[in-house]
């Protein structure tokens, strides 16, 4: 059981949690993740550690409520407990002074890119951060990024904030302007990562992506998280999660991530149903209380 110290929404359906986990806080390095279970029947959810505070003994995770389990997680608040938290899992990001490093985050991917951007800065890189979102409210962690990056460029698909266009367009613009870029890290939706890989390929820039396949144990025991890199299977939870973007088979990654789409739908319906039932029940309970006190 791990206590939630802080919980707040930082974007639509995107919630930041600071959780008590002293051992993980002490051990984790940029790029690693935890697996959590919300309750005792919960699914095992992999979530990147966005930050940690060793003196407070906490780790920070940022969660987008997409499936039933993440939506359920996002109903929790400070003072609540998370049933299980295990980690830090996976390999740490490979950090060195590349020169100029670009960190690209799409949507909630920015939360995953943040710790690595921070580590890149600490290693002496000139860090450029591109933060993409569909529209203004989906651009997250801009303030935090400004603390660790030398340049921050928010982009929105609809032009409601910052640069009007995709993160890759901004990247292309930087490249075309003749800036020397030595390293690119891209984290976000699979099509975005694939597009970044395609953008940097002709320039021969070392590019790394962090993969988010379906996982179960997160320790290499099940092989459910396998992805294909350089045409060979890898277990993302132990061999990754970061890989050379120019070698990742994004098509297979995308296909495998669709494996449980029908179940996800059913699960959300079930979650909504249970939630509504709870609300009805609460309303009933209030009504009864009301009647008792006034009757």
């Amino acid at each position: 059981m791990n206590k939630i110290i802080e919980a707040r929404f930082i974007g639509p359906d995107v919630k930041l949690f600071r959780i008590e986990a002293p051992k993980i806080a002490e051990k984790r390095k940029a790029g690693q993740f935890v697996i959590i279970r919300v309750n005792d029947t919960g699914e095992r959810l992999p979530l990147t550690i966005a930050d940690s505070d060793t003196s407070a003994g906490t780790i920070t995770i940022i969660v987008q409520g997409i499936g039933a389990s993440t939506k359920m997680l996002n109903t929790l608040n400070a003072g609540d407990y998370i049933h299980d938290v295990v980690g830090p899992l996976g390999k740490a990001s490979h950090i060195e002074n590349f020169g100029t490093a670009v960190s690209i985050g799409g949507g909630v991917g920015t939360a995953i890119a943040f710790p690595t951007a921070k580590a890149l800065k600490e290693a002496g890189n000139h860090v450029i951060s591109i933060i993409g979102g569909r529209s203004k409210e989906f651009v997250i962690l801009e303030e935090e990024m400004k603390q660790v990056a030398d340049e921050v460029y928010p982009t929105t698909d609809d032009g409601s904030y910052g640069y009007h266009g995709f993160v890759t367009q901004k990247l292309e613009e930087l490249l075309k302007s003749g800036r020397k870029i030595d390293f690119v890290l891209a984290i976000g939706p699979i099509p975005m990562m694939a597009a970044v890989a395609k953008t940097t390929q002709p320039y021969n820039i070392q590019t790394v992506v962090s993969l988010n396949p379906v996982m179960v144990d997160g320790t290499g025991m099940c092989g459910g998280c396998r992805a294909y890199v350089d045409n060979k299977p890898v277990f993302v939870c132990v061999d990754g999660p970061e890989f050379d973007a120019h070698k990742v088979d994004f098509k297979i990654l995308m296909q495998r991530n669709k494996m449980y789409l029908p179940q996800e739908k059913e699960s959300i319906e079930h979650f909504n149903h249970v939630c509504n039932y709870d609300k009805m029940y609460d309303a009933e309970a209030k009504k009864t209380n009301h009647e008792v006190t006034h009757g």
Partner: protein
Amino acid sequence: MADLTTKERYKIERHSMPEQDALARSRNFEEVNLGYTFEIAMEEAERCIRCKNPVCVAGCPVAVKIPDFIKMIAEGKFEEAASILKEDNALPAVCGRVCPQEEQCEAVCVVGKKGRPVAIGYLERFAADWERNNVKIIEPKIPAKTGKKVAVVGGGPAGLSCAGDLIQLGHEVTVFEALHEIGGVLIYGIPEFRLPKEIVKAEVESLSKLGVNFVTNYVIGLTETIEELKARFDAIFIGVGAGLPYFLNIPGEQLNGVYSANEFLTRVNLMKAYDFPNNPTPMLDVVGKTVAVFGGGNTAMDAVRTSLRLGAERAIICYRRTEQEMPARVEEIHHAKEEGVEFKLLVAPLEFIGDEDGWLRKVKLQQMELGEPDSSGRRRPVPIDGAIETIDITAAIIAIGNGSNPIISQTTPELIVNKWGNIIVNEGNMKTNMMGVFAGGDIVTGGATVILAMGAGRTAAKAIDDFLKNPESW
């Protein structure tokens, strides 16, 4: 039936195990074997001729005093029978269910030379179950504390038996487990219908009552390294199991619908995906579909029978050799057949074929025949030219074994492992090359059996005790 002659004992027929009806059970997750009643157990126990020189004991990897516990059952002293079992076997209710008795004690039983051997496994199970169900309070003997601390890494059978022995020797024991539940393969691999989880939980609880400290969600190597544990503990036992599934390395393995047996079984057993969406972990829908399982061991049998219970219309075992070579327990093969599992023998998968969206649709199988014996003495299967068949399937489950998990070895460079990643130990005492660090179970042997893992845990516990008493002796 006190004093039977040997001849009279030989005349009693072996008692079969009462079990759930095959058709009914192939669609539920309840235990298949129902267990002997005490009348049957007492009668079966009379079949043992109480050999002066019991070969069955030598056939048992942990040398359970078989004729002694069987005699207690014959006399109706079930609690005593259970305590005799527990002197040598920490988990008799588990072993009575999952040990390959037909290759161990029952293979050599003298009665089996003329007829069928004494049902040692069923009797072991009976005594252990009787104790669990009837003896509510077992007063643990609290041993004098030694003040020494031992870390046990991994909560599978190897770790549990090691922890159980060490706590009874008065040491302080902490078990660190990566998953959210204790039990290793007993919890995430072997299904409910063969080993009810309640049994494993009861065993873990009794160890807890004896004072074993269990820490779940703790991955040694990542949450804390072996090196760091060494600073906090006087000795360490590593029992992390095999746990890195092999794939076939044939085209199409990336398709949606291709699982390792570990993933498939973990989703169903540990995460209870059969109760989706009440349990949110999803599982591919196989209702009315065809599932093919590749392999011939216990894992393959568990996976294929689980598929039936999830509603598969056809569940097929595809195995490269013949039934004689199947490593699974005979009882599992027998049960699988009764439940309607199809067996395709002497076939090897060549390729998985999917649709344009990446969903598995078919598998191409190569027909094999037995050729010359290989180095293991088994006749090697060789492909028959042109004999290729393609069948429609929705799910493929690969159950061809496990390699060793890399987390400990990668984070403990000092620890010596062989080229497959198995930790190298001195077999007599389970010592690794690192002072104070012992190892046993599947991580040492590669995928083996519950009883061998427990035996290794026990050998290690004894050696750890010696080491703690006299660290100089290392």
